[in-house]
């Protein structure tokens, strides 16, 4: 029966090619536009560290001056050097890391290569196991290296290739900012998206290429980048004890009980600091896991959301258009339907027949929509946004695109098909 309906649908669609093409194109454009923007949203709101995002927590304290205090206000999203180092020493979490984004001028030893800048991260040792950074050679440094401010570095594969033409570089030295660092590890291409652990540096479009122990970076005075907020005058905002926040602090706390205990610890710590006169405000701490933190920070750009709404609006207009055209088409065939009903076809089978026709438009429209979404994403990749290179169709979105097209055309077909099967055979069979 189904093949018979398919045959009928095909005949009907062929009979009025312009109308069929119009419906297919409308569905395809609507679906193509929606799926392009939805794919971008899907990529932008992806879990940057699947499997672990529930165990990693971002730490916030409020070390600011008494002036301008509003109870319950959001504390700064970075910590001071004093607090960062104190929390690291306390070591109350499974793992913890204090860090900042950095910049380093690399002075290559290779002839013909000019000095150049790269993005880096000055961080404590737990960074690598905590965020699951993949190594291709060597290993991360240890907490002991942190304490000794060892002159070591972990570099990215791309940098190793650029500087030495190979990734087999463990043990070699690297010259940066007038200092020598020994390379102890090379990591694979690694770019968590969004760049959740430090939203002050580019959220989507950044790859850090050199990692140096935080303690070492302070001894060598390696330049840093990102935001720095001081609430009082300071001759050196990066010094220990300076009234400035500029470091990110993350803790790994498996299980809710650990997280609650750590929150209590942060509260106690703040209270002690207040009693000691270092904190002017009552304890105000936040401990958010990766997902909560990303949701709170609203990392997905407004423009991407706005574009999605526009595309969905467009799809709705295309659907209304298709409903109208299908209705026109089905009612125009009243006499044919009347004959089929008179010959014994039930309302149900007419309904199914008409829906098959609508579904067919959806299948072709979906295929075309997929092509358009693919083209659309190609166009997005050439847009000037920092997330542009990430916009690619993955399997779930591919299936979703096709599903959306078929579902949309079936929904669009419901009303016309229902109206179509209401045709009373008697009236249609009388000569007009």
């Amino acid at each position, binding site marked *: 029966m189904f093949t018979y309906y398919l045959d009928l649908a095909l005949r009907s669609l062929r009979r009025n090619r312009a109308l069929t093409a119009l419906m297919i194109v*409308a569905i395809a454009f609507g679906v193509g536009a929606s799926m392009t923007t939805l794919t971008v949203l899907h990529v932008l709101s992806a879990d940057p560290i699947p499997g672990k995002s529930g165990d990693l927590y971002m730490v916030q304290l409020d070390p600011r001056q008494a002036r301008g205090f509003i109870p319950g206000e959001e504390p700064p999203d970075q910590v001071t050097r004093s607090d960062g180092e104190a929390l690291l020493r306390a070591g109350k979490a499974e793992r913890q890391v204090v860090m900042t984004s950095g910049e380093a001028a690399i002075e290559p030893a290779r002839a013909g290569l000019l000095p150049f800048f790269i993005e880096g991260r000055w961080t404590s040792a737990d960074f690598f196991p905590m965020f699951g950074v993949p190594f291709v050679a060597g290993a991360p440094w240890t907490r002991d290296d942190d304490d000794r401010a060892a002159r070591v570095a972990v570099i990215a594969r791309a940098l190793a290739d650029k500087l030495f033409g190979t990734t087999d570089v463990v043990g070699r030295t690297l010259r940066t900012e*007038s200092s020598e660092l020994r390379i102890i590890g090379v990591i694979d291409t690694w770019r968590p998206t969004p760049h959740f652990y430090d939203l002050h540096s580019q959220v989507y479009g950044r790859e850090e290429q050199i990692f140096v122990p935080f303690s070492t970076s302070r001894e060598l*005075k390696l330049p840093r980048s990102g935001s720095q907020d001081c609430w009082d005058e300071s001759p050196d905002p990066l010094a220990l004890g300076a009234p400035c926040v500029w470091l990110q602090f993350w803790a790994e706390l498996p299980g809710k009980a650990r997280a609650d205990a750590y929150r209590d610890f942060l509260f106690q710590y703040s209270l002690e600091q207040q009693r000691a006169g270092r904190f002017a405000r009552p304890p105000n701490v936040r401990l958010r896991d990766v997902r909560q933190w990303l949701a709170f920070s609203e990392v997905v750009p407004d423009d991407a959301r706005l*574009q999605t709404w526009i595309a969905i609006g*467009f799809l709705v*207009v295309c659907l209304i258009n298709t409903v*109208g055209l299908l209705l026109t088409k089905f009612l125009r065939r009243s006499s044919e339907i009347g004959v089929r009903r008179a010959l014994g076809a039930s309302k149900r089978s007419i309904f199914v027949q008409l829906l098959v026709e609508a579904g067919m438009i959806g299948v072709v429209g979906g295929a075309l929509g997929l092509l358009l979404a693919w083209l659309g994403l190609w166009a997005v990749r050439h847009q000037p946004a920092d997330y542009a290179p990430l916009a690619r169709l993955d399997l779930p979105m591919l299936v979703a695109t096709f599903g959306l097209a078929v579902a949309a055309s079936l929904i669009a077909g419901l009303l016309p098909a229902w*109206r179509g099967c209401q045709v009373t055979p008697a009236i249609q069979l009388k000569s007009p």
Partner: protein
Amino acid sequence: MHFFPILSTLRRHRTAAILIVAEIALTCAIVCNAVFLIRDRLARMDQPSGVVEDELVLARLAGIGARADRAAVTAQDLAALRQIPGVKFAAVTNMVPFGGSSWNTSIGLVPDSVDSLSSGMYFGSADLVEALGVRIVAGRDFTSDEFRDFDDVQATRTKVPAILLSRGLAERLFPDKNPVGQAVYATGRDPVRVVGVYEHLARPNDMSTKERARWSMILPITPAFTVGGNYVLRVDPARATEVLAAVTKTLERVDPNRIFLDRQRFSEMRENYFRKDRAMAYLLVGVSLALLVVTALGVVGLASFWVQQRTRQIGVRRALGATRGDILRYFQLENFILATIGIVLGMALAYAINLWLMQKYQIPRLPASFLPIGATLLWLLGQIAVLGPALRASLIPPAIATRSV
């Protein structure tokens, strides 16, 4: 004319009529908002910078490691840059308008005031005001003895003797006083005297309100090229290309052991800064056009169907004496009625969408003047779309009425 007959016909084709009205309404609402958003983006891209844009060439570089000779090298750089033919002024500054990276500080009338205003903090070497072409509207530019070294100020070894305020900031701080000669607190606990007010200098990054975007100050503090590292050259526009070609070589001759990040004309940087807005505006134009085309095709499809369905009825009317013009106008009026209902609903919807966007995305209120634009557009579109089917209807011969089927 045919108003009531049309209404009763439409009532009998209720579903199709409702669909087309809904389509027109939705299109009208989306297009109204899209046109408004496009205008918003264009206005953003058109923001004044306050500098002489076509005369500016910028170069950015960075040092390697801590350099003790940074101030001396900077002075040599500036001297060498001034020697390039076509360069009128050269200065070093911590930041540039639309440059992205920004320096900000709070400024108020008392030290540590709670209601001090976070403003853009520009500082640079002696010729900065002249090099940028910032227009002084009250008071004077800095004198050469007012400039201090950045490192000295940072280490609080010296005090900043003077400050220039933007007009926007001066009016906010001193609503009913002449700001020139007044004291403000900007960099620390010591008062700084306002020596002049300049018209405008755009901030390097986006601000949440138009008013905030106008708050900036200039301080007579000379940074080394390692602080921000922007050289600003004011050049003869006719020779800008030559200057651009010579900049890097000139700086390399002074000291090659640095990283030369980029050199560009101000216009390029501006274009770069607003790239996302341009892309969004193009996208909105594209979607609006696509929407209008889809809606027009929908109108054509429905009108064609109605013409076909009413062939006999039209024949009868023609046989009873209706002219071709009458038939043509019947379909045009029918479309006009449908479009009008759609437009009225569409405007209400446009307004609702705007309210929702205002809440979610900090978009300004849709001015009422945008509604007629959407209305006219859709009326025209409807009339153009219905013309073909209506003309076909008017060509139906009266003889059709006498034929069976």
